[in-house]
């Protein structure tokens, strides 16, 4: 059942990818709406998948990177759908849908095989860390996607290649959505780092400074800098977009990349 639902989620996200691509290529608002609808349906199926995860035998731990990626894509999708209520960024679906599909696809590669049990120490702290860090990571990822699309649109406008009616969000919408995602994502990441430290302390009673932990700490410090620049210094929107994209890339490489290589 879990596998079937997860496959359905992937299929719906794929439909969203294709519809958003068609919408962008044809300048069709209807195709964009279909893409958002498919993404919402996928998020629903994705939520059902997670709610039934405990019925799987054996239940996969969220600390597994593949499932964590699936969780991040789900939270990222939910965050995007929530942002749609406050900002006009429906066109961002052209980036969110492929990322959501990628997360599910990565998790599907590990299904239904055996999974590693990595929850040494307190399982609740481990799950809290994964949930909070994944949520933070997903939202910061969303901020990065906003930044990427902002930079692409900024470039088109500067080069005078903009096409009114393309269905892509305005620069202001992308900047605002990126700011909201960053404002929520950074505290979640902070909580993730804190719970992670508590989990490490509970498991090993000492900090051994492995690559994952150092990477997470460095990324958090850099994001702190980014948040300060954005909300205290009020740097320009393009620089904010570059920072959001670069920050997310760094976070991905250090936290996820180190984990994969390990």
């Amino acid at each position, binding site marked *: 059942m879990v596998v079937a639902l997860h496959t359905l989620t992937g299929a719906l996200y794929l439909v969203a990818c294709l519809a958003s691509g068609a919408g962008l290529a044809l300048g069709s608002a209807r195709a964009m709406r279909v893409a958002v609808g498919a993404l919402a349906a996928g998020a629903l199926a994705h939520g059902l998948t997670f709610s039934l995860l405990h019925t799987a035998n054996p239940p996969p731990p969220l600390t597994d990177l593949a499932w964590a990626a699936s969780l991040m894509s789900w939270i990222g999708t939910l965050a995007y759908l929530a942002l749609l209520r406050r*900002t*006009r960024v429906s066109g961002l679906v052209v980036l969110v849908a492929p990322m959501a599909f990628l997360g599910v696809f990565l998790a599907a590669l590990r299904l239904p095989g055996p999974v590693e049990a990595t929850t040494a120490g307190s399982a609740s702290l481990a799950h809290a860390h994964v949930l909070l860090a994944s949520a933070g990571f997903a939202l910061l990822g969303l901020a990065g996607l906003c930044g990427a699309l902002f930079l692409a*649109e900024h470039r088109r*406008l*500067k080069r*005078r*290649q*903009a*096409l*009114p*009616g*393309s269905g*892509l*969000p*305005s*620069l*202001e*919408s992308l900047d*605002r959505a990126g700011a909201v995602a960053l404002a929520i994502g950074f505290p979640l990441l902070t909580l993730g780092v804190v719970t992670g430290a508590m989990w490490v302390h509970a498991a090993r009673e000492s900090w051994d400074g492995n690559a994952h932990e150092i990477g997470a700490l460095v990324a958090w410090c850099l994001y702190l800098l980014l948040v300060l620049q954005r909300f205290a210094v*009020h*740097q*320009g*929107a*393009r*620089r*904010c977009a570059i920072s959001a994209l670069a920050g997310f890339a760094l976070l991905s490489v250090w936290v996820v990349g180190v984990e994969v290589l390990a």
Partner: protein
Amino acid sequence: MKLLLLGMNHRSAPLDLRERLAVNEPGPFVQKLVACEEIEEAVLLSTCNRVEVVALTRSPEAARLRLRSFFRRELGGDPVLQERGLDEALYEYRDGEAMRHVMRVAAALDSMVVGEPQILGQTKEAYRAAVEAGACGPILDRLYQRAFAAAKRVRTDTRIAEGSLSVARVAVGLARQIFEDMSGKRALLIGAGEMAELALGALRDAGVASLAVANRSAERAAQLAVAYGATAHGLDELPRLLAESDVVLTSIGGDRPILRVDTLEPALRARRGRPIFVIDIGVPRNADPAIDRLDDVYRYDIDALAAVASGNAEERRREQARAEAIVAEEQQRFEGWFAALRAVPTIRDLRGRVESIRARELERSLPRLGLDDETREAVEALSRALVNKILHAPLARLRHEAEREEGMAYLEVARLLFGLDEADGESGAAAQGPPDADPEES
């Protein structure tokens, strides 16, 4: 008589070259043109997208050279312009093509944004200036009347003027790519010309929160402000206004750009990273292209707006085919009238010849008849009526045939039959009609 049109537009010449050649007052220039012996009549149209001269001439080659020199020396004021690609940028149309071009321009079919409403008014202004300068004679007058009629028909009989593709409205569409919602935005208009007024209307329709007009002439700014619910300002308030404005639209005269890096940087600092969309519809440009390097400034000049508009114009192009048919119809009507002008000398000579015979015969016969005044007048009226009745059909036929390509044969036969090219020893010189006689009135 031949029609010759020389000019450059947004397709043939870059903006900086058009800027150099643009003139605000065409009157003195066309006066200079018609003072040349090669050119009988002339109209000069100078807008932000085109500079064109249409001229009537008896010697097209000499007129062509004269017009090229005029563009180089009088308009450009710089012989070096030739090296900067002026010759390559100039296009030439003659006779039928020139007529068609004038009509297409007036009907906004040759515009950067097809169907835009401003060009008809600008064409009328150019025509009026030529008339006032005494440079527009009966033939160009007729051509422009037909062009205005064609433009009116195109606007009323086709949907080409509908939609949202005027330059100003394209600019508003672009603003929506930068800003999430126009309702909270402030717009600043620098300048107060006709183009600026249209743009102001488009911004108001887009729902901007507040409009401000800054102009050299406070009076004109105040007029616009009252009409559009905006606030009026002088140019000295520009630094403060720039810091407050999200959309800045410029359409003001002047040799030096009014928006430069040094004027925008303080405004951007005050705006704390909020972007400014600069729409520069002025010619010469009001915004220095160097402001492109400022991150939060998006500058679109008139050429850039054209490039965006062309991506949206497919629907309108369908209507364009209908509009082109209307222009072709009006062109045919004018061409017919213009060709009929060939019959004027023959008709004038023929009338003169017959009139002189009538006058001479009356002069010879009346004294011998010994008539009283009343009868004498009756006989004179009778002779005139006879002449008119006899000439009516052949002259009408000549006029009709002259409109056709092969009509020249009829004119030659008429001249031969009546000996119009032979010396008239008996009657003396044929009576001369008016030099610009209308063939329909002959």
